[in-house]
């Protein structure tokens, strides 16, 4: 099925000349000394900031706190989970949440990427727009959507009622009654939260799929057209296989992040109604932080470690695939090629079955919604094919254009609607917001929210802090990822696989549980309430993704250039600096953008490490604007606008590099 595309020339390692290697080199690989230097910074960061808390958690999970004493209970915390209904529900919720969110993100991301790929004009603008949900801080996302989904005042219900779609949804049984109570109906709460997660996740999928599409050799399509393949056949036999690798990696990464997600649900529903939306991380958080039983909380997280661990292991294999074809399983071929191809499908089928068992009411609704999309797309595709075969080129193009136009409008509408609400709310007066009138238009327009923002809090300081932290952590991430990526791509040393696994361990532990041991460590070093704690912590979360991206990018640079430089007397490091780095600029920029955005929006660690108002970053500062039980929607909206604009501008200019960086590097092979 995939023989059409030539693989990139494998760089098989030449058998080492026995005379030129020392014992240590024979044991640890030829370049182990240099590799140690290169991967050193990353190892230190990850070991310090991730491994230490994980080990700490393992030890803590065997204890219970009774008053001021810590009592050793062995496996007591784990056995208690066997009968813990809240824990079971939490795991189920996490699984259901992740599964559906991934399905929709893949579908919508693919549609968006395909449309962007075929667009001739305006691609930069649309791509920039589609990236917006990623850029908006989670606290703003949560409160914006809560407002929109309000059953009485929210625009979603108002618009759906006015257009008649709402009662229709109730009539076919998609919702139990109209007006639907999106967040308070136990059957609708989880779908609603999934919707918001999908909204937030589309940009990441779109960007990665877009880069994957760019990486597919155009010649293949031409060859297929010459052979008379229809658009659908081209899609099924060239596009999908070509995207297979990137799709799997993206889905795995996103699954890990979504499975461990905490703050979105926390801010939207607190896990309610009842425990209908509580993910397992919230159960752990409740035990550890609210009931002050760190051991019990740690046990919950560690029990789920194997699940996430499996995903991580698969991810490592996928990421390592590119180097040497079959290198990962040299000498360890347990499965035949056919079995290996069937494995993902088997996983999908099993997951489907579990989903049906876990969430019967959601399954058919999700299938219906998804089915509608797919059927529409297929129908349009058929019509285009039919028209094309009948020779009616113009009509085919028109239908195709109209079809993608409508799809594009739909997608953009979905992406932009909450942002529109956010923008107009920033210009509403406080009275209008409280009275909940005219949700979609400021009457009158006023800039009082902006003035309150700057006179009230330390908004300017927060802005400055965020810029400082983002830039500093991006620099560190770039340095570490570039060094580590080069080591993995070029240097031969033992333990490269272990190293990859180690940095991916970062994703294994949800942030919501990492932060207490991390906070203790940071306090012990004396770095709490200091921006440096953030500057050091942030890079660790982007390092795996960044390293993977750069590994691919470095590999795409022909090794001959460096060899030539080495022959001319340049050191490895010099070759790295002077030849590889300049050529890898798009990849480096992609990493920079990714890290910058993450740092810009990061909430949990900033929230934990920083208490002084002067040192807060924007997301934390904005969260602190919520005074107990009074939410200043207007000021939050105004702040969000000011927070999002620089990132949007950055992406507007830089998204070309982001996709290029992803394309040329990671997605090949």
């Amino acid at each position, binding site marked *: 099925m995939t023989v059409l595309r030539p693989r990139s020339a494998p760089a098989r390692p030449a058998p080492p000349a026995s005379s030129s290697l020392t014992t240590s080199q024979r044991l640890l690989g030829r370049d182990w000394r240099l590799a140690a230097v290169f991967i050193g910074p990353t190892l230190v960061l990850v070991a310090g900031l991730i491994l230490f808390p994980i080990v700490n958690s393992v030890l803590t999970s065997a204890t*219970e*706190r*009774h*008053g*001021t*004493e810590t*009592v050793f209970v062995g496996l007591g915390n784990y056995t*208690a989970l066997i009968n*813990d209904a*809240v824990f079971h529900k939490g795991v189920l919720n996490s699984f259901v949440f992740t599964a559906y969110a991934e399905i929709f993100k893949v579908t919508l991301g693919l549609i968006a990427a395909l449309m962007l790929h075929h667009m001739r004009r305006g691609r930069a603008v649309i791509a920039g727009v589609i990236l917006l949900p990623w850029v908006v801080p989670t606290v703003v996302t949560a409160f914006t959507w809560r407002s929109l989904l*309000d*059953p*009485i*005042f929210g625009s979603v219900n108002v618009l759906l009622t006015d257009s008649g779609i709402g009662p229709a949804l109730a009539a076919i049984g998609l919702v139990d009654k109209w*007006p639907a*109570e*999106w*967040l*308070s*109906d*136990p059957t609708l*709460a989880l779908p609603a939260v999934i919707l918001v997660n999908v909204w937030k996740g589309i940009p990441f999928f779109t960007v990665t799929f877009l880069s994957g599409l760019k990486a597919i050799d155009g010649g293949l399509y031409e060859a297929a057209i010459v052979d008379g393949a229809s658009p659908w056949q081209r899609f099924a036999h060239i596009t999908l296989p070509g995207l297979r690798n990137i799709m799997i990696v993206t889905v795995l990464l996103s699954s890990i992040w979504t499975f461990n997600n905490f703050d979105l649900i926390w801010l939207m*529903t*607190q*896990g*309610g*109604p*009842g*425990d209908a939306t509580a993910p397992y991380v919230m159960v752990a958080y*409740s*035990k*550890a*932080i*609210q*009931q*002050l*039983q760190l051991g*019990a909380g740690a046990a919950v997280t560690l029990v789920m470690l194997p699940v996430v661990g499996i995903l991580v292991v698969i991810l490592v294999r996928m990421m390592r695939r590119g180097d040497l074809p079959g290198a990962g399983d040299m000498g360890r071929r347990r499965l035949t090629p056919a079995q290996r191809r069937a494995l993902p499908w088997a996983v999908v089928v099993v997951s489907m079955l579990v989903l049906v068992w876990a969430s019967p009411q959601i399954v058919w609704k999700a299938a219906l919604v998804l089915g509608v999309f797919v059927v529409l797309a297929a129908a349009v595709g058929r019509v285009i094919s039919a028209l094309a075969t009948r020779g009616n080129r113009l009509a085919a193009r028109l239908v195709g254009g109209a079809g993608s136009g409508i799809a594009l409008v739909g997608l953009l509408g979905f992406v932009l609607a909450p942002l529109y609400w956010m923008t107009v709310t920033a210009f509403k007066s406080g*009275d209008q917001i*409280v*009275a*909940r009138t005219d949700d979609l238009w400021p009457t009158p327009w006023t800039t009082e929210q902006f003035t309150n923002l700057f006179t*009230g809090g330390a908004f300017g300081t927060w802005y400055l802090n965020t810029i400082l932290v983002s830039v500093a952590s991006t620099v560190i991430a770039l340095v570490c990822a570039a060094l580590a990526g080069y080591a993995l791509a070029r240097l031969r040393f033992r333990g490269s696989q272990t190293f990859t696994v180690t940095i991916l361990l970062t994703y294994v532990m949800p942030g919501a549980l990492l932060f*207490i041991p991390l*906070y*203790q460590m940071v*306090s*012990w070093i*004396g770095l*709490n309430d200091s921006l440096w704690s953030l500057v050091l912590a942030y890079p660790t979360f982007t390092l795996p993704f960044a390293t993977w991206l750069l590994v691919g990018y470095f590999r795409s640079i022909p090794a001959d250039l460096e060899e030539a430089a080495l022959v001319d007397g340049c050191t490895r490091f010099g070759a790295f600096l002077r030849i590889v780095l300049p050529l890898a600029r798009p990849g480096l920029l992609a990493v920079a953008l990714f890290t910058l955005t993450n740092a810009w929006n990061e909430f949990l660690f900033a929230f*934990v490490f920083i*208490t002084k*108002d002067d040192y807060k970053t924007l997301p934390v500062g904005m969260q*602190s604007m*919520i*005074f*107990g*039980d*009074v*939410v200043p929607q207007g000021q939050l909206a105004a702040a969000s606008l000011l927070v999002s604009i620089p990132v949007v501008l950055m992406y507007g200019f830089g998204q070309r590099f982001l996709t290029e960086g992803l394309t040329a590097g990671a997605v090949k092979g």
Partner: protein
Amino acid sequence: MEEKPDLSRRTFLGMSALGVLGLAACGGSPAAPQVDIQVPKALLDQAAALRGGSVGMLSQKLYSEAANKALDKSLQVFAQATGTTVHNDLVSGDAGDMVAKMDAEVKAGTNRDLAFMSDQRFVGQLHNLGNLTDVTDVVQEMRSLYGEPATEATNYCVFGGRWFAIPYHFIASGMYLRKDWYAEKGLPLKPHYTWEELRDNALEVSDPSKRRFGWGLTVNRSGDANGFIANVINCYGGAIADNTGTKVVFNSPETVAAVTFIGDIYTNSKYAPMLPPGIGSWTDSSNNENWLAQILGLTLNQFSVYADSKTKKNPVYANTHPFNGATGPAIDQPLAFGQSNSFVVFKGTKNPDLAKLVAKFMVSGSALLGVAKEAPCLVNPAWNKVWDSDPYYSSGDPAFAALREQTRAPLPMRTRTGYAFPQAPSPGEQAATAAYLLTDMMQSVIQGTRPADAVASTHARIVQVFEQQGYKQ
């Protein structure tokens, strides 16, 4: 406190009626002008030896920006007058991890010297973690200076006969209803109602077509819901733990009756008109928002929403009838005794004497006055003589008389089933509440579980929590 099984009618009224009517007039004067803050000579003398020192302080954020600023100002005046440095930072008490963070800091030795926070919510937890120092000496000194503190403080700040927190300012909580809606239906305005009355009245004033929903109390995961459910259970004669706070007594006929009552409201179609759509997903800010949007007939909250409606000139303010709370079959007076924001001095503090001095200063006359004037009804004196220290506290507002009576509420209040409120701070109870066991229980009742079964299974879960905290059942 001496037990008084039957409260005289006067005390009864004094506590509730006056307070309630007064609260309605509370905050009559606009934001007060500058208050001249002075450090009392006695404290200046004590500070002489501490010149040049510095302390770090954490303040639980007050629900009024102006009040937070006034607090900072008081601290700066103190610092200047005594030649010391005071660093103050605000923390939100509602984020859920304030205690965990403080604990981590103390264990790492990087904590600040003192902090103030709600005694009812947090002091017990911090004491249980071993993070607080004994401040009985300070409290004794203040007793001689300022008289007795609010009665509830003796329950929430005292452990094993020793004080671990210094009462700072008193916070009252209340319930609010729409008096215009009540008037339209000829319903009386009273200082307190039974829960049944409130429910029936709420139904009567409801009119969904006019966006009038009489019942604004949720049972979804939130602090408000936890308070509401616990209150009804207590009024019916049930309790999570016994009076010692160590033994779980949740499963009882009284608790089942209370849970049945609450469950009925959210499942019986008869009461559907009085429930605002979406109430099942409300979190702590939702009832405020809907109250301020003027669509609720009844809600329960701290005075933040009340003060907010007044300062923002929301029309709902004029139509608000605040009252102390509701009663039930097991008790004839609302369980309303408020709470205080209290100072704690952390273990391992580098400058305990200065920290204690700051506390002594902040509770007194002019230091508190500035903050109180910026947060009418939210910040009130917690010490008896401080009420008398300035005419503002007596004549600045008719409300103060009644609020003052709340600070003098004779405690404990006993239910007919023998529980005495406020009960001893119970880490098990706090953990069980924080784990949202009560709200999850109500949710299962709404989903169809029989109240008796729901109570029984929740009892088992509470037992598990208590045992995990080290209290064998």
